[in-house]
């Protein structure tokens, strides 16, 4: 399925030409999990990436839902 993804923190650096306003559209297998999405995007665990959809932080095994855009961010401990 096609999915709209927005990247935050420093995560967009690996995607030349990425525009914040639009985000990007990617193709993922139906039922792909948050963990699989990160792997597909080539984001390593050490970057502290977090997938958020509909205001909730997804667990590694939570599945992506068709038509629901996600944000991929990096965890921050406060400020």
């Amino acid at each position, binding site marked *: 399925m096609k999915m709209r993804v927005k990247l*935050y*923190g420093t995560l967009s650096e690996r995607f030349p030409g990425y525009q914040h306003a639009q985000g990007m559209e990617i193709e993922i297998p139906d039922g792909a999990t948050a963990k699989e999405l990160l792997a597909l995007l080539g984001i390593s665990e050490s*970057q502290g990436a977090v997938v958020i959809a509909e205001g909730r*932080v997804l667990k590694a095994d939570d599945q992506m839902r068709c038509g629901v855009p996600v944000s991929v*961010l990096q965890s*921050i401990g406060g*400020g």
Partner: protein
Amino acid sequence: MKLIRVNMSEKTIRVEDVPQDYVGLGGRGLTSIMINAEVPPKCDPLGPENKLIFAPGFLSGTPLPNTSRISVGAKSPLTGGIKESNAGGTVAAALGRLGITAVIVEGQAPAGELYFLRIDEKGNASLIPAQEYKGMRTYQFVGKILESYGKRTSVLCIGPAGEARLAAASIQSSDADGHPFRAAGRGGLGAVMGAKGLKALIVDQRGRSPDPLADPDTFKEAAKAVTKIVKADHMNAEVMPKLGTAGLVAPVNSMGAFPSFNARKGVLDGWEKICGETMAELIQKRGGNPTHRGCDQCIIHCSNVFVDKEGKYVTSSLEYETIWAMGGMTGIADLDTIARLDNLCDDIGVDTMSTGVAIAVAMDAGYRQFGDAEAAIEMVEEIGQGTEFGRILGSGPAAVGRHFNHPRVPVVKGQSIAAYDPRAMLGHGVTFATSPMGADHTAGNVVGAYLQGMLDPLNPQGQMETSRFLQIAMAAFDTMGQCFMASVALLSPEGFEAFGKVIGAKLGTQLGPGDFPEGMGIRVLKAEREFNRKAGFTKQDDRLPRFFYEEPLPPHNTVFVISDGELDSTFDF
């Protein structure tokens, strides 16, 4: 290891050895334990019985990076309770290099008199009349002081708001470039300084008499281990240098917990215009500096220099909490306006958080429209001008709420909440309600636990325990002078162990299990809570304002659901 006691009534300066009870303490631990021991809890915060204590962290001035945090403590005119407000910059390391454990300001100069306290490179302190600087804003003041005493001078000072003894007045701290933009903003300690008749504390940075390290070799090794952990953390290695704390705008809005329009919504319309990613891009494009070193001995560089369209300096550093208070709460999704407001607050010497929330309360009460940038700037200017409304605004959100008879005032113990709505991040509600400091953004910040998936922000389970753990840990780190960012990276058994070794190597003793952070943090919190109890605080003061329990916050449409009983068990020790 010496204490410098300055009596503003008698204009005397006394140097004392540090009593045995205080050995191993610095920063927040020292200010809070001393205030609890020496300040009458029911005293007038702006009277001669209150004491204003400046204490570098226990590790400030040592070679350990990220330790240039100064704690300022007193009874707060904003909360009526004990207060520690800490700031970065250069002054903590400067005091540490002189072996000065604390500067304690007592008494009160006669009305109308103004002084600054200067500590030279030998550590000698003198009070110098400062009449010519009366009413001066902080940027101009620091410029003049650096002209007189040289660039290697650290300055902690107040602006017109502190001199006017306004309850949201800050104490501004000069950075590595000599700009007074770091702030001990919370709790109105600038007003205490103004009431003492003290315009500034000025410290020569060239001191070479730090307290000796008991075991320098072990210290070096232990410091290396701590630095390795801090550097390995993605937040400190990647996010902070690129985006600074503004990197939080995206996650907190994405989680629906960014209090907006005076906490009527959890997502700000147009938040992407003011997020860290947009800010960094704009700064880069205009020729500012998105990766700035604001504090002495910093290896993280979370600061930035924000410039206007012409590339001219506007402010430094634009931080998450300021962007929220001046942008989210007021509905002003414009970085140029927020930067201007930040600069004004630093220059006048008021807390950006309390002031932004105070503006939002005024807007919510119908005084001006949400989103009116010009009105917000005019309002803050009024604080500097000392108009009647400016004095109300500079006294914080609760004063504004009383003025307009408006009930939606997001404060606890008189101090505004921070940039995390307690209805969508329940653990923050626990910290806001129970911290002896009043609502606070560093005392027990839970957002990391949510983002790391350790805790569901909307499920009451585990919120109190997480807040308790973090409040204890941060009270201990604040005692050491360690910056918040580095401390967050050390919140693990390995981090605590490595950090404990650094403390032990300075002290010459080995810390036992449970000494750090638990033992130290609990000792500090107990002193703070004891002071507040004696000042008249009860369980009822450990509550959030009613509307957080009653008004659902969009988009999750949830309210604060942690019970009073659970709040009261936070400090069951």
